[in-house]
């Protein structure tokens, strides 16, 4: 479903601040794979997501989604295939539009938009049905402005909007990090449910190691632009946070300097 070949990206090339963000990185994901990515700050996790999403273009290498080479495709073109949920709960929705209007925009992701009404009766009942699955009572607030919702509600809505048109790839960029613990738990549970139910192919960046172990069928640890450790389904089952930290120390010979250690 997703193939990254020899991705190489440098920031501030030729200056004092030159930094190799991704160093010939390879990653291949099958349909239905749910990969969680951990790593310290500056490891290149966000850069990786931005390269897949098209916000950044790699200096070298290829990005292939659903057998299409999207390396040079513009952000809006490839977002037909890619769903995204951002860390900031405010980033994934339009605040002055209503819930149903936001959903209508998300609904339009897969096709060319025209002059037909965004919110129709038929779509409304479809939206209602989808919102019910969130169990946040949003289905009764279809015409409420999204700006009035709480951060957790907005993030749940973002998650729904990114997934209900079944993208080829779902990118989750620390999408629970800005929420309080109980809300984060709710969104985590929803993520698990939605990804499983729709058999989505997902890539999730997180700082929370326990979350990275609990979710998904594969786990990747990144450092300095490289994948330094990978656990497949079997290896991941018995994994603990302590083991992960030990693994990191063995490979890099240092301690992981990260707020994740506290998690």
């Amino acid at each position, binding site marked *: 479903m997703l193939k990254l070949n020899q991705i190489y990206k440098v920031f501030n090339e030729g200056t004092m601040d030159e930094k190799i963000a991704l160093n010939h990185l390879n990653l291949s994901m099958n349909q239905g794979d749910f990969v969680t990515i951990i790593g310290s700050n500056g490891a290149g996790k966000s850069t990786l997501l931005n390269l897949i999403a098209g916000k950044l273009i790699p200096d070298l290498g290829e990005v292939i989604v659903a057998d299409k080479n999207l390396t040079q495709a513009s952000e809006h073109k490839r977002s037909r295939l890619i*769903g995204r949920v951002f860390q900031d709960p405010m980033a994934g929705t339009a605040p*002055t539009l209503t819930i149903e*209007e936001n959903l209508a925009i998300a609904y339009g992701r897969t096709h060319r938009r025209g002059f037909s*009404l965004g919110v129709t009766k038929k779509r409304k009942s479809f939206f209602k049905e989808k919102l019910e699955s969130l169990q946040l009572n949003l289905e009764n607030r279809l015409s409420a402005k999204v700006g009035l919702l709480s951060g957790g509600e907005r993030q749940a809505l973002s998650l729904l909007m990114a997934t209900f048109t079944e993208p080829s790839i779902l990118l989750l960029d620390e999408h629970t990090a800005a929420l309080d613990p109980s809300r984060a738990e709710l969104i985590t549970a929803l993520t698990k449910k939605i990804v499983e139910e729709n058999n989505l192919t997902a890539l999730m960046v997180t700082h929370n190691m326990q979350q990275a172990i609990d979710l998904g069928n594969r786990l990747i640890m990144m450092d300095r632009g490289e994948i330094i450790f990978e656990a497949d389904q079997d290896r991941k089952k018995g994994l603990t946070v302590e083991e992960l930290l030990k693994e990191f120390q063995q490979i890099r010979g240092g301690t992981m300097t990260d707020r994740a250690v506290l998690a």
Partner: protein
Amino acid sequence: MQIAIFGAFEAGVIYAIMALGVYLSFRILDFPDLTVDGSFVTGAAVAAILIVEGVNPILATLAALLAGFIAGCLTGLLHTKGKINPLLSGILMMIALYSINLRIMGKSNVPLLQEETLMTSISNGWKSLGLDESIQAILATIGLSSFIPKTWAIAIIMSVLVLLLKLALDWFLKTEIGLSIRATGDNETMIRSFAANTDSLKIIGLGMSNALVACSGALIAQYNGFSDVGMGIGMIVIGLASVIIGEAVFGAKTIVRATLAVIGGAILYRIIVTLALRVDFLETGDMKMITAFIVICALVIPKMWGQFKEKRSKKKRLLASQQKKTSIKDRGETLA
């Protein structure tokens, strides 16, 4: 006095089309577009020159609309493809349009007084229907017989036109493209992640905004009986004034309400200016200053009023909680 206010209403309704355009760029796209000062005149110039050449006034007005659309698209191109700051792209386009408008007209002023315009044909057609007399009769029965404008035609037909444009705009902003344009002004990151090309949406939005502005300019030229190269100066401020006054007075909770508020704001603005100009020591030349003053008032007063109300309610709450405390204390003492 009544005649002057009636005149202000007529002009206000026509300027409301321009205000709708400004609403589209300023509020919906969140793009302070100064092209307006130029594209308003472009509309007037194109319509005036075509009418002088003998083209049907309706076609001339539609041509003006198209010219405005192109001007707006060019501003959009400067901003999105040229990566020029929104304010600066508008200013550049505005200044370029000044010369273009002169070129279109060939001189700085094109009179239309002898020509058949949309306004004259509306008045004439109306007269043949004999509707003015019946309206007058109705007014007489409710005791308003002293007020006799030249014709009701322009006020009524233009009101209908503006309301139709408003309804069209309301509908457009609910279509898939319209929703995407609104989201572009709201949260660009979001709408891009849903496969929308924000560059083209901005270009279309600015084009439509300036099409409305140019349409208003074309109608004003026909209403006033001339097109002048300087008639657009300060137009953006008038548009903003209409939007801001309208939102402050009528509210802007939903799109349907906001567009209505903008129209109301445009009419209200004209009436305020007309009344202000009747004050003895103010001259016609003071108009721009009055406009600036109105906008400042419309921006500052609601804010100050809000702060005042908040302070007052805070004081009340504080007082109430203090009273509660003392009463508890009193009770405590009596118990002791």
